[in-house]
């Protein structure tokens, strides 16, 4: 076992995460901001970069999520996400903590045949297909946000726990995959204690807290993707047998257990969408932007074919050729699945590099919009008239190049770890070639 440091050894950290109030207050505040975004999306100016729905969600939230929360804190966003909150309140029949009575959910178990993230993969792809419209039209953003909340409420009223988050949320799959690279994990301290504990309060719940909302039994947890860092298990565990560890980066990626084909495909979907977004949103090609925006037009179908073809066919197809060339000692499917996790660091770096450019150009809209969220001519903070100027001017290329090089290094190193575990040292060479190709492509799109 590599080095771990349990931050719960500090009493104030333990109090902060075990108490319901800090998390609750953050979630309720975020829910209020979320509802404000929906309202402003409908009622505010249709000019996206002057509307809180667009600037608050797709610039401010996105920047925090991809540049800070996911790389450093894993699924921490999921622990404060407001999307499932109304559904949880109804499902649990309580606004804060267990109250000894049931809620208004049928409490069915999520169907076994849907216990994977293929639906999340499809959902993310669908959002990506319409992203040029969603990212720029406040009304559409408002409907998408409201639709996600209503879907979460509906799922909570029929199924138990946070089935929406684990199996349907299009952003959840993205966060879950990249959370495996993060230097933070919640894990069992002593497996023997859990194994001997017959009540399994962490899964079933008790008067101190709910059974794991993510349907995860902590003893069996080996990767971050199935833990939403909601901390319910910390509240319910009667043996103080859980640790919130600081750990080495990417600690989940090279291991024998927990690799899944649906998640492996997610890695390619995210690589493909990062490349496509860099071309569409940051590239100089107006025809490509028009194609992504003109939903339903013949050119949009071309864009859709490019995005879907690249993410679902070309990138995994190229990788599977590499896997075949590496002469695996495992079955092709197993080899493809375990080795795809090596691409997680590079994917994260590509998204961070893309988002840096996107955010650097757009962050100047944040203060004016906070001063005038509806775009109605208010000036609450005196910053409504601040002129637009991009930030990080001279530093951006250095940061992007550094991020991509770090991602390439880390991915190949992870591939070596995977090869070492599976007795397949040759595995690293096709991954190295693939990583070099992807990194070169992204460098050209961002800096060329």
């Amino acid at each position, binding site marked *: 076992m590599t080095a771990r440091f349990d931050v719960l050894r500090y009493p104030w950290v333990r109090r902060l995460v075990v108490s319901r109030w800090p998390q609750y207050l953050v979630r309720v505040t975020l829910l209020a901001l979320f509802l404000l975004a929906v309202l402003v999306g409908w009622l505010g100016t249709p000019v996206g970069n002057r509307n809180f729905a667009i600037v608050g969600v797709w610039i401010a939230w996105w920047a925090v999520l991809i540049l800070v929360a996911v790389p450093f804190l894993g699924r921490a966003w999921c622990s404060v996400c407001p999307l499932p909150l109304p559904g949880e309140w109804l499902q649990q029949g309580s606004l804060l903590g267990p109250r000894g009575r049931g809620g208004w959910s049928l409490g069915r178990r999520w169907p076994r045949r849907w216990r994977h993230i293929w639906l999340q993969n499809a959902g993310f792809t669908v959002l990506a297909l319409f992203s040029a419209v969603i990212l720029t039209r406040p009304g559409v953003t408002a409907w998408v946000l409201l639709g996600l909340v209503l879907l979460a409420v509906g799922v909570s009223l029929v199924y138990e726990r946070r089935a929406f988050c684990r199996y349907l949320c299009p952003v959840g799959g993205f966060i879950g995959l990249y959370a495996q690279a993060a230097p933070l994990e919640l894990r069992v301290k002593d497996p023997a204690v859990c194994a001997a504990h017959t009540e399994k309060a962490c899964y079933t719940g008790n008067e101190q807290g709910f059974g794991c909302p993510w349907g995860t039994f902590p003893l069996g947890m080996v990767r971050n993707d199935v833990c939403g860092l909601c901390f319910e298990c910390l509240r319910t565990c009667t043996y103080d047998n859980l640790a919130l560890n600081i750990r080495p980066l990417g600690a989940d990626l090279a291991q024998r257990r927990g690799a899944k084909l649906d998640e492996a495909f997610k890695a390619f979907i995210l690589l493909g969408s990062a490349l496509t977004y860099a071309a569409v*949103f940051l590239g100089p090609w107006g025809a490509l932007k028009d194609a992504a925006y003109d939903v339903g037009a013949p050119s949009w179908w071309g864009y859709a074919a490019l995005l879907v073809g690249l993410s679902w066919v070309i990138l995994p197809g190229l990788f599977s050729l590499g896997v075949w060339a590496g002469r695996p000692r495992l079955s092709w499917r197993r080899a493809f699945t375990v080795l795809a996790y090596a691409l997680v660091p590079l994917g994260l770096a590509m998204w961070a590099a893309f988002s840096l450019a996107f955010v650097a150009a757009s962050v100047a809209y944040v203060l004016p919009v906070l001063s005038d969220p509806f775009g109605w001519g208010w000036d609450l903070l005196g910053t409504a008239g601040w002129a637009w100027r991009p930030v990080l001017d001279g530093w951006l290329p250095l940061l992007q190049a550094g991020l991509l090089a770090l991602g390439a290094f880390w991915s190949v190193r*992870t591939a070596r770890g995977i090869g070492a575990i599976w007795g397949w040292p040759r595995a690293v060479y096709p991954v190295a070639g693939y990583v*070099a190709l992807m*990194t070169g492509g992204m460098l050209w799109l961002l800096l060329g």
Partner: protein
Amino acid sequence: MRNFGEWRWGIGLVVAVLVLGLPVPQPQAKPQERVFRVTARQFAFEPPVLQVNPGDRVVIELRSSDVVHGLYVEGYDVEAVAEPGQPDRIVFVADRPGTYRLRCSVTCGDLHPFMGGKLRVGRNPWLWKGAALALWGVTLALFAARPRTREGGR
């Protein structure tokens, strides 16, 4: 090998810094005046990419074919704003090699935040340095870094 093992991160970092500091050869053409007639429309500049040599005097005449558009050159902090029928002009010396984004600086419609182009001044050092750095990273990971596994395997 043990000594190399102890020093590998230091060596890796020093090489990475050297790569970042390496000069990238630039075209040695005599500086001249380059005039570009750029047409802006929702949501593109035409031509989308302007190529010049370091030291060239760049003249950009901006025309708009539909609504008001701006053209802001990142890194040089110069801006032109054109209305339909009212062109604008900027002049500057492209004295720093690299690729600089051209951005529309006047809200012009839904895709305005993504309306852009590129100004290429000689060879972009960051593209070449980034590629060299990534190759170094891949090489280091292939041959020097120890693989890390969840099982603690080395």
